[in-house]
């Protein structure tokens, strides 16, 4: 009998630590972590990376990626990252933030870090709820969506409309790259990685601020199966939060 040669086609990226995550089944945080881990490997960044984690389900990002990290107060990751990058301009710096963190309490910090054109990247996980605190309304919660603080569904006249962050960030002077992807299908995940890579490159070549929004599922707080959650992203979220690149200065001739 001849020996069968096996070829390894899928493995854990080196930058991703070999340990089970605390995320709920079907949660997309794990996918986002993996994409970052793959890029840290492929772009040989792990050793020069300083991560800024935020407050939300993903605060434990630092347990899963093998890079130095500092924990920021709720919403303040872009300010903390500004301090990190200004102090160590030769390092690779990114924040990883949820929608409550980034688009509500941290609205000032994200807007100004982008506007100053801080040479850093922001990974923005939009799952339309406050995950960690138990599923309250977030600034991105959809009209009609039931959460623990909008039991009758979000109402535009009472709670306002869901905020489209990528569009806002793309409008600011210091933003070099802003894009929105989704983590609900394989093609969308591939695109998400492409966008992240671009944002990373814009930091590495000193162009400016890179922002990638990832539409993600929170099956637990949506009270759905992971499959249904993926469908919801397609049917409800993507029509309101259209995917694509909103700003790419390499096509426009640079930021000043």
């Amino acid at each position, binding site marked *: 009998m001849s020996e069968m040669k096996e070829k390894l086609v899928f493995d854990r990226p080196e930058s991703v630590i070999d340990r089970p995550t605390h995320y709920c089944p079907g949660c997309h945080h794990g996918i986002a972590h993996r994409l970052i881990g793959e890029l840290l490997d492929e772009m040989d960044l*792990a*050793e*020069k*990376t*300083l991560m*800024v984690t935020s407050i939300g389900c993903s*605060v434990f990002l*630092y347990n899963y990626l*093998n*890079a*130095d*990290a*500092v*924990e*920021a*107060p709720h919403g*303040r990751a872009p*300010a*903390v*990252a*500004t*301090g*990190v*990058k*200004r*102090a*160590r301009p030769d*390092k690779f710096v990114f924040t990883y933030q949820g929608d409550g963190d980034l688009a509500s309490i941290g609205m*000032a*910090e994200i*807007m*100004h870090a982008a506007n*100053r054109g801080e040479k850093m990247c922001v990974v923005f996980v939009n799952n339309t709820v406050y995950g960690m605190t138990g599923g309250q309304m977030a600034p991105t919660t959809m009209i009609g969506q039931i959460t623990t603080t909008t039991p009758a569904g979000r109402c535009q006249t009472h709670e306002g409309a869901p905020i489209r962050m990528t569009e806002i960030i793309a409008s600011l002077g210091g933003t070099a790259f802003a894009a929105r992807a989704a983590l609900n299908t394989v093609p969308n995940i591939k695109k998400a990685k492409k966008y992240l890579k671009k944002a990373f490159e814009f930091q590495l070549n000193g162009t400016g601020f890179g922002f990638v929004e990832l539409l993600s599922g929170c099956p637990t707080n949506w009270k759905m199966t992971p499959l249904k959650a993926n469908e919801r992203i397609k049917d409800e979220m993507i029509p309101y939060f259209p995917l694509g690149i909103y700003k790419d200065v390499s096509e426009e001739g640079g930021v000043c």
Partner: protein
Amino acid sequence: MSKKTERIFVKGNEAIARGALAAKCKCFFGYPITPQNDIPEFMSSEIIKAGGDFVQAESEVAAANMLLGAGATGVRAMTSSSSPGIALKQEAISYMAGSEVPAVIVNMNRGGPGLGDIGPAQGDYYQSTRGGGHGDYRHFTLGPGTVQEAYDLTIKAFDIAFTHRTPVLILGDAILGQMKEPITPWEPENIDEEAGRDWAITGRTDGREKRLIKSLFLEEGALAEQNRHLQAKYDSWKDLTEAEQFETEDADLIICAYGSIGRIAKSAVRKFRKDGKKVGLFRPITLYPFPSDELKALAEQGKRFLTIEHNLGQMLDDVRLAIRTVADSDFYPIYPGNLPTPDELEEPILKCLEGK
């Protein structure tokens, strides 16, 4: 060891900024608020010339968090503000204490509560010495009384911050910040600019283990252990107190006052001494840790005490705690909003001396 330079004539605010540069401060994060604007204004050009970086943040909240980020990388960094701005910084200060990030914060105390005024006051003594933010933490609080001392203590603040991995707060007021005096700047020698090499986040170079700067401790028993560790650190500061004693030796009455009021009280004490009256001054320089032992030693000699503050009685608590088993202290408040003079202090001191 120090290299002295020529005398210069500067405001307290500028002295602090120059002291920070002498201490090799490399990042400054500011936000406008009177009466401390000279600090960020000076830094906006001078720290850049010194090879550092300056950011005018979008708020005091952001400035303090930038400080947290820079400090976490082991770089010498600083922010300054005044009373309401310090209130906004306190969440981040608590995080810095919890995750043991060294940094220097300046508070040029103005009148409160609320928007108050932009004049001098000492109403932030509690805010500045009790942690002020959430959780059980402490940090050094230094209270300079002269422009030279503002310069000297800023250099010392960076030393303390990096020796003990802690935020350090310098508490001045509008008098100190805006007053011009001649000072002799000096350059400390042998500053270890990579003092954070054992703990700071600098990238996982040379294949070392990754590092985390964090204050979240969810595992069973972990937070209690962290609090025990922090408390032991704070306890170890007990011997690092500093205070000025002026004419205390044979004094019957000791005036306890800090910062600008300590200096004004000193003028009053001099006047009383000229009249042959046995009054002395005890001026705490480290407001936290408070120089309790030195004060208690004076109480044990049978001396009486009068605490004078530019507030309605805050350091008074620390004075009373220090001497509580032996003596008590009278109190004279200067109301925030009023500008104190040495003359104003004569009557209350005299009353106290005569036991009225």
